[in-house]
């Protein structure tokens, strides 16, 4: 039941009592949204779910809520739902963005300010989707995440065959070192001073495949510490060979962007998926 003012002598209906009981048992009335939405006063004490394939926002304005009011927000959709400060102030120790199946509560401290308390999760999905275009750039990675995991599955190119590579902070210096090997060979091949991480030494297939790469980044927020980054891949290359690879990258700059692209710079992704997870 939405928050309301009762008057002396008012007779409560059974439906109102049931709704009050539901709210008292921490199961306030639910409101389902499918597009960006601006909160209204009647949302106090309720739960709002968002379900949209595109990115959406929940906007918070002043003068609608009182200190102590709460609004629970859950994102059921694939599109990221972001809590947006309209005329009100919204602070959080976490992110205001809710990935699919994430949830949080707006806890109003005054009529013009709220704290967004996001449910803790071991992994937060920061971005996910299908590989397309010449490059997929994951930007504005929050430095609140001390550990990042990028998982890329089945990347391939539909134009010129190429290698799938990763580059951090647009760093094209000779700072990436790697080892490669055929699963059937005990002789690894090293490659130092490369300008990116390659998922394979050879070109990836030009059609759907089961290749997998995981990039781990220990992303210290201070520039005094070195970032430790590693990549692990198992790839079936264009010639049908099964390769593994791993590598390391060091930098004193916190990583705020990752580019997934072709080694030749111009091949266009035909498919494959990426997911970037953050851990605080």
């Amino acid at each position: 039941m939405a928050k309301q003012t009762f008057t002396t002598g008012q007779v409560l209906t059974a439906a109102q009592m049931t709704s009050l009981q539901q709210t008292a048992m921490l199961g306030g009335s639910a409101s389902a949204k499918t597009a960006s939405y601006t909160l209204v006063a009647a949302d106090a004490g309720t739960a709002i779910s968002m379900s949209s394939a595109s990115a959406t926002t929940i906007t918070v304005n002043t003068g609608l809520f009182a200190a102590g009011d709460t609004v629970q927000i859950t994102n059921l959709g694939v599109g990221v739902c972001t809590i947006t400060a309209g005329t009100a102030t919204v602070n959080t120790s976490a992110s205001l963005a809710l990935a699919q199946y994430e949830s949080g509560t707006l806890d109003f401290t005054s009529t013009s300010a709220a704290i967004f308390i996001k449910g803790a999760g071991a992994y937060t999905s920061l971005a996910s989707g299908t590989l397309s275009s010449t490059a997929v750039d994951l930007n504005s990675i929050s430095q609140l995440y001390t550990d990042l995991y990028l998982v890329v599955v089945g990347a391939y190119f539909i134009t010129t065959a190429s290698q799938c590579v990763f580059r951090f902070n647009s760093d094209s210096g000779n700072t990436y070192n790697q080892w490669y090997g055929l699963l059937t060979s005990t002789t690894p091949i090293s490659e130092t001073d490369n300008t990116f991480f390659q998922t394979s030494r050879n070109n990836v297939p030009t059609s759907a495949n089961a290749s997998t790469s995981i990039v781990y980044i220990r992303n210290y927020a201070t520039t005094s510490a070195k970032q430790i980054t590693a990549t692990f891949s198992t790839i079936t290359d264009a010639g049908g060979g099964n390769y593994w690879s791993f590598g390391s990258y060091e930098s004193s700059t916190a990583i705020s962007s990752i580019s997934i692209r072709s080694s030749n710079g111009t091949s266009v992704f035909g498919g494959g998926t990426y997911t970037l997870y953050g851990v605080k």
Partner: protein
Amino acid sequence: MTNTKPQVKEINCESGEEIIRDANEQELVQMAIDAANVKTRETETKAKASAKAALLAKLGITAEEAQLLLS
């Protein structure tokens, strides 16, 4: 008219905003450098493989036998 410029899909991990845009001049320059680097590395790799094969032939041993000597 067909757009032949390479395109970049940008995802803002804070807001979830996603845009697809043409590569800018700086990115096009970097793409050209990357392509040149790939060609150079391919040439070097092929040259190394040829030199290795020639040496093995000269010595009259196989790659596995050479590996055995080095282990």
